[in-house]
């Protein structure tokens, strides 16, 4: 299953940028991770809000003196835009990452795909699969209802026939009583 969904624009940051710039960009774009690019615009690593906490704040390193390159995870674990869902999932699993920057032949980021997006896609597929099942169940339920109605009609007609044999009705009387009986039975449902 090729991952052909249009992926979102990657938010990038230069490896040489100060840490504060990375935090500001995360806040500005409301994301928790940035693709770090080198001087040539190629993906060099990934930096997440967790990296900022664990590798800078927790280490009591002076944030003003640090650059993104000092705390990022490198090299970047990436994927090609034409890889299929299985390959993407496998890589996320094996490498323990939730996001994969998608890069072109030059290693320049052109998109990013997240585990959450893939899961959402799989869930929608499953939901689509259950649709024919639900439609079939509705048809079966309707068929059962019709069967029950037919049974009621059968019993009503049997009752009329029995009485016809015992009582001397004309055909017209029998017909009218038959309709009354049917109506009564169906009305009772």
């Amino acid at each position, binding site marked *: 299953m090729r991952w052909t969904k249009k992926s979102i624009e990657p938010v990038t940051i230069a490896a040489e940028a100060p840490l*504060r710039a990375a*935090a500001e960009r995360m*806040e500005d774009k409301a994301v928790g991770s940035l693709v770090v690019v080198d001087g040539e615009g190629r993906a060099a690593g990934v930096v997440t*809000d*967790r990296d*900022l*906490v664990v590798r800078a704040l*927790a280490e009591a390193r002076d944030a003003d003196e640090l650059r993104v390159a000092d705390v990022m995870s490198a090299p970047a674990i990436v994927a090609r835009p034409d890889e299929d869902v299985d390959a993407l999932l496998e890589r996320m699993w094996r490498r323990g990452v939730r996001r994969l920057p998608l890069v072109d032949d030059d290693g320049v980021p052109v998109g990013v795909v997240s585990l959450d997006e893939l899961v959402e896609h799989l869930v929608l597929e499953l939901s689509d699969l259950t649709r024919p099942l639900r439609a079939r169940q509705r048809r079966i339920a309707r068929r059962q209802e019709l069967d029950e109605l037919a049974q009621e009609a059968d019993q009503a007609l049997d009752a009329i026939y029995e009485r016809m044999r015992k009582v001397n009705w004309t055909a017209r009387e029998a017909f009218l009583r038959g309709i009354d009986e049917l109506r009564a039975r169906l009305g009772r449902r």
Partner: protein
Amino acid sequence: MSTPADPVAKLVPARPVETVEGTASAADAARRMARGHVGSLVVLEGERPVGIVTDRDLALGVLAHGLCAERVPVAELMQSPLITLPESASLEEATRLLRKHGILRLPLVDDEGRLVGLISADDLQIALALRLFTASKAIRTEWQNEALPPECPSCFGKE
């Protein structure tokens, strides 16, 4: 409301909830998150859980504004009031609460409001996915059981 057969507490591996005092500094909180390998801490005021602070709250609250991590108290960065879930609640209730508040984690509390655990959207996702996996095994087993031996007397192996 009776306790559901699969209370949400059963779906989470038992793990101690990492907490931090509201008066502690962002730097303390960061160290605690690093040591505990967690992405969030429940913030306490004495014994009472009053909020939650995540790695994102720390990174953005401190670094994006050029503040000093040693001087910013956690209470200024935390999310509050704290949204909690009774440990006996069901998976459906947990999902509903996460959705309603747009959050990814729920501290679990007992009858007395004491912190007993923490469940995340990831935990729920794993639980549901495992159920789907069991369903797929059920389908496979059904296929296997249907394969009649060639000597079957009803159809002489023709079906």
